[in-house]
């Protein structure tokens, strides 16, 4: 009986220490220069979508915020993460609404369930264009159940709808659970990183990638910022 108690105590200590020493990487993604002008989208050919937008929406290749912040940047641990093989049980959802993709950039783990939903009153076809994963193309008329898919190789995959040529999105299929997509204000956060050496990569669909090497030593929050140079046009 005593042995069990000792074991239990040791186990508790182990769990606590691993929880205690969980570092966080957080920061901001910004840009320098002048980002390309995002064009307004003419949805007049799809009235059921056009009427959902009081003001015309623009393309989302480059989405910026206050103080030169850059959104839709996938920030992830590209090497050093200890839990690469753990596929999250819950699905990620990609919604087609108002003839736009919500979110524009969707990050997921390799083999994680991807649910694709059509909330519009029009047919969409979901046509992701992978290079190393399998390429499929499915029609999803209004009112049909969600499409369930998954990707078994890490890859950034452009997504389009052939019926509505302005619809563009991105799937970021990653080999890690430590990822975030920069949102309002360009902020991102990668919590629960045990002590160790990591490479953090930031990827933007138009501006490419940047990396930073960091070391987490204990229960700390490491500030990592990425600055992308805006392309001339």
């Amino acid at each position, binding site marked *: 009986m005593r042995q069990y108690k000792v074991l239990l105590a040791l186990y508790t200590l182990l769990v606590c220490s691993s929880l205690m020493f969980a570092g966080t990487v957080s920061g901001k993604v910004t840009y320098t220069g002048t980002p390309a002008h995002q064009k307004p989208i003419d949805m007049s050919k799809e009235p059921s979508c056009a009427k959902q937008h009081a003001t015309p929406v623009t393309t989302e290749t480059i989405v910026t915020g206050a103080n030169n912040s850059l959104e839709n940047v996938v920030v992830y641990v590209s090497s050093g993460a200890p839990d690469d093989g753990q596929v999250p049980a819950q699905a990620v959802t990609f919604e087609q609404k108002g003839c736009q993709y919500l979110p524009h950039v969707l990050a997921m783990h390799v083999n994680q369930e991807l649910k694709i939903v059509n909330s519009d009153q*029009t047919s969409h076809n979901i046509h992701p264009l992978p290079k190393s994963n399998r390429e499929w193309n499915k029609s999803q008329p209004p009112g049909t159940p969600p499409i369930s898919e998954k990707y078994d190789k890490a890859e950034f995959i452009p997504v389009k709808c*052939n019926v509505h040529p302005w619809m563009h999105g991105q799937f970021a299929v990653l080999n890690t659970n430590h990822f975030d997509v920069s949102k309002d204000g360009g902020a991102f956060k990668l919590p629960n990183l045990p002590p160790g050496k990591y490479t953090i990569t930031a990827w933007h669909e138009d501006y490419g990638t940047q990396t930073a090497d960091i070391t987490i030593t204990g229960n700390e929050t490491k500030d990592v910022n990425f600055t992308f140079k805006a392309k001339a046009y």
Partner: protein
Amino acid sequence: MNSLKPLDVLHGILSLILATGFATSAVAQDAPEVGPRPPGPPKVRESHIGNITGHSQAAKSDFRRYCAGCHGDLGDANGENAVWLDPKPRDFTIAAFKCRSTPTGTLPTDEDLYNSIARGFANSNMPIWNTFTKQQRADLVAYIKTFSARWETEKPGDSLKIPAEPPVTLDSIAHGKVLFTKLECWKCHGPQGKGDGPSAGTLTDSKDNPIRPYNFAAGKDDSRFKCGNTNQDIYKIFMTGVDGTPMPSFADVIQPNDAWDLVHFLRTLQVNRHSKENEILSAAHGVIPPYVDKNPAPAAAPADNKPPGGGQ
């Protein structure tokens, strides 16, 4: 007596030149050993079509003689003629194929590839290769499978089960028309199937080359579809999709009986082609009556989904 005659010398030199000439030209026939050729020995693959077994090694010279001009020695669609072609030749290194009996995103069966070679591709530069023997075709199928590692790691998808075709009736044509509207086929193919829908001009294939939707109304009795010409083939085309192009798979959204109704309506879009569908339609004075659903579903299609100017 042993001295060489000038004629002999000349003959010797000429033979030497000829021999070297032939030697170099023989070397030139081979694919250059440069470029992104994958490392390692050439892969050996088999195909199985009925009781015929195809061997990739046996197709090497046929591929170079008849296929490489467009598809390229490396099967990457970069043959010397490729720049002049529209649509572009298939890139076998990607292993995404247009005409399949298998679900979108999966590999085709050997038979699918075998049929594609003999059938050729309508509205493209891929001719009907019915000059090959069955064995040659089976060998070429095996050869095509050497270009992508997907043939090692994946198996072809399950072939689509096509139920027996119900009889063509005015009712099935009318229901097919409702589906054509509801599933928004007309967005690309146009309300009359002329390939002139509102999205037609914007379409690109998966390599960003412009591509046109199929024009059902073009041609007469000789009109062909890309992936076959029977009613079963039409059923297969929209259910499995045409991979690598904007044409998606409808397998998850059309019920088998509905699919047959759509096939019957699509036949009537081939206005100049003789078919039992067109016979039934002309017996009804060319008018498709409004479809009356015997088991009406509660959800009604919103008005926005109607094609401009109505159906046919």
